[in-house]
């Protein structure tokens, strides 16, 4: 255990709050902090240059001078579009594609490794796997590939961008060990990339520690319309996320229509934005429930928390969701949860209704049941309180350290 304290970790990530677009940055920050609290010495390399408050426990390096806005080039999450699309750099003198940003990132990591000797390289998702592979191949440093999502997840379990598949495959093959955020993801890695199961550890995520601070207050007066609907007996059902095929939102919309046909006092809030937005708006109109559906556009921070607070029910309708941090966030704001069985978070949450992502009738049934039976809503909300925090970041750090150690020991032999 003493040896662990001295362990030096090189973390390769693509974003950290407040410059994050989703759960990835939040998970990286919380994990790094918890590892540092257990004595790990962490260097974190980012592809862009910006200020990050609350990261004093580690050393953050910027691989480029890019503004954080352009770190995804054409947008990593809409991965089918990733080509050589050009984006301007901060100083406007050059333009870069995501592949070029990744090349610069790799160069920076190589330069870093000439002067530093980390014990472990911990790479988060495909964006950083190439850099991780360099550390492993050229410098012999053990590589941990952390899978927050695979390209198959992002593409709704169909084939995604072949280039990304290739990078992912190489990273997973070269890694000494793989960390998956759920059993669901472990299975995807095994089935789609044929990686042996014994090479993969499951480490779940936990709620952002920011939520422990009592700085948030929900002001009902800001949302008079929704509140007045609730007073009239409406049940508010919310979903939050990027509007991509992965999130299964068309199914949620169809279920919403089915449910509204039996109980018109339902209000659905679709919070987020993405490539499927227009399709979803049209679908809500085609199904004749436009009046029951609210689109908020992209939201974050307090606005996002307000949506959780307003909602009675939170639905995670993902076709494939490696973990699904938003479910824990919704639980924190006292929502009853409905989760697809294809979400990682449903493996650790018992006090929720569950369904298969294609089963719109069952989803409608569950929405109607919560809206129609107060005791069900009460019990779901009450019981999730004792559950959603059962995994702590400290436990997660402990598990990561154990994995690091295992890899280190193997290296000695």
């Amino acid at each position, binding site marked *: 255990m003493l040896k662990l304290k001295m362990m030096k970790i090189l973390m390769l990530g693509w974003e950290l709050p407040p410059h994050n677009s989703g759960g990835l940055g939040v998970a990286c920050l919380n994990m790094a902090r918890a590892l540092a609290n257990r004595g790990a010495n962490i260097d974190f390399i980012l592809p862009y240059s910006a200020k990050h408050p609350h990261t004093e426990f580690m050393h953050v390096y910027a691989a480029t001078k890019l503004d954080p806005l352009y770190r995804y080039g054409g947008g990593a999450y809409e991965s089918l579009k990733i080509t050589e699309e050009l984006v301007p750099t901060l100083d406007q003198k050059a333009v870069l594609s995501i592949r070029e940003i990744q090349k610069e990132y790799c160069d920076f990591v190589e330069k870093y490794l000439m002067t530093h000797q980390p014990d472990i390289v911990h790479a988060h998702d495909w964006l950083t796997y190439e850099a991780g592979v360099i550390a492993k191949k050229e410098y012999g440093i053990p590589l941990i590939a952390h899978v927050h999502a695979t390209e198959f997840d992002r593409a709704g379990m169909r084939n995604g961008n072949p280039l990304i598949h290739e990078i992912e495959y190489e990273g997973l093959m070269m890694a000494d060990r793989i960390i998956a955020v759920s059993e669901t993801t472990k299975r995807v890695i095994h089935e789609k990339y044929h990686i042996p199961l014994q090479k993969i550890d499951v480490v779940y995520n936990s709620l952002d520690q920011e939520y422990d601070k009592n700085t948030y207050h929900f002001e009902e007066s800001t949302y008079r319309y929704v509140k007045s609907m609730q007073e009239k007996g409406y049940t508010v059902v919310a979903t939050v996320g990027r509007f991509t095929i992965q999130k299964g939102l068309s199914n949620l919309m169809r279920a919403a229509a*089915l449910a509204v046909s*039996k109980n018109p006092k339902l209000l659905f809030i679709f919070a987020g934005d993405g490539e499927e937005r227009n399709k979803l708006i049209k679908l809500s109109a085609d199904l004749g429930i436009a009046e029951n559906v609210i689109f908020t556009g992209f939201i974050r921070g307090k606005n996002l928390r307000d949506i959780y607070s307003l909602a009675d029910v939170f639905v995670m309708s993902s076709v494939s969701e490696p973990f699904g941090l938003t479910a824990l966030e919704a639980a924190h704001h006292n929502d009853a949860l409905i989760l697809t069985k294809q979400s990682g978070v449903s493996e650790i949450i*018992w*006090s*929720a*209704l*569950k369904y298969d992502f294609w089963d719109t*009738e*069952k989803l*409608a*049934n*569950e929405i*109607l*049941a919560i809206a*129609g*039976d*107060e*005791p*069900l809503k*009460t*019990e*779901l909300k009450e*019981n999730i309180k*004792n*559950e959603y925090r059962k995994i702590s970041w400290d436990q997660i750090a402990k598990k990561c350290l154990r994995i690091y150690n295992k890899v280190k020991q193997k290296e000695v032999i």
Partner: protein
Amino acid sequence: MRAICLYLHIHQPIRYKEYSFFDISNSSDYYNGEYNDRESNERIFRKVTEKSYRPMLALLEKNINKHTDFKVSFSITGTWLEQAAKWEPDLIETIQRMVKTGKVEIIDETYYHSLAYFYNLEEFESQVKKHHEVIEKIFDISPKIFRNTELAYNDSLAKWAEENGYKGILAEGWDKVLGWRSPNYVYRPFNCSKIRLLLKNYRLSDDIAFRFSNRGWKEWPLTVEKYQNWINLDCIHGNLVNLFMDFETFGEHQWKDTGIFDFMDQFISSWLGEYENKFVTASEACELMEPVDEASMPETITWADTERDLSAWLSNSMQIAAMEELYALREQVLSTQDKKIISDWEHLTTSDHPYSMCTKYWHDGDVHAYFSAYASPYESFMYFMNVIRDIKYRIAESEK
């Protein structure tokens, strides 16, 4: 003389299927799902028949024929009988043969294995009567002993049983009630004169029912010699050992490969191998001795969980709402005089339904989760309430 009163409870609920909101007013077939559904009554009944009912009944019948002094008491619910008649009728024939030998006693209870006693006395009485009549018809005997669902017992239930002509009633021999007293005697319920109270020796019963296959138990493996020695020691206080348990202990709760069948087979022979030992039926147990004392249980006591109360059935708001909604419908249901509606409603009173809505230990995935057919307590509640809604719809239709 030392006697064992072996009493086995035979029950399977008739579960409602995943009855959707969209089925309401379109289909009223609540209980017949697909064979491969997780709630499939037929599949579960046939499975438990192969694992438990058939082999254990064979074992008991063999011992009845082999030993003059081997006797056993059963309580058999109406929902079990309905399903056995439909899918495994030979089970009923076996029990009929056993009853004919005079060495098997059948004990009365509510036909639907319900908690009606706590909600509606009339409904309770009608279910007990229905059970009594069905047992008389199928087995040609008239039960004289009563047990309530989950051995739920209190003083007023004993009074009711006495007033309704029962000569004995069963309850849990819980320490908090007995104090220093031993369950190995016959007791007189509080404020009663004629009726006798038989109390489960829960330690010796649970050694078989719960601990038998537990490798973490320091007494594992339980041998016949060891167990018989424990009974001998326990008989220092009283010489009647009431072993009450679920019939499914044998083969379903404790699987065949734990050696439970061989254990029981050998134990019966071994126990009867000593000249002073015998087995008695519940009725005979009541007559073994005069009551040694009065036992009072003003609060309801059951044989369930460490709390020995009804909290696994009636504690969370879903369970309470479901049962209140259900019993509130009784008058309306009966006034339809529609046999199908009445029967569908009655089947909803089975206590396994609120049990499957129990969230007490749900997150631990323990025994409650293992024995529930539904994906979660929340789903069970959801389907139950949908059925209730459809029954309300049918009542409204019949009034038109």
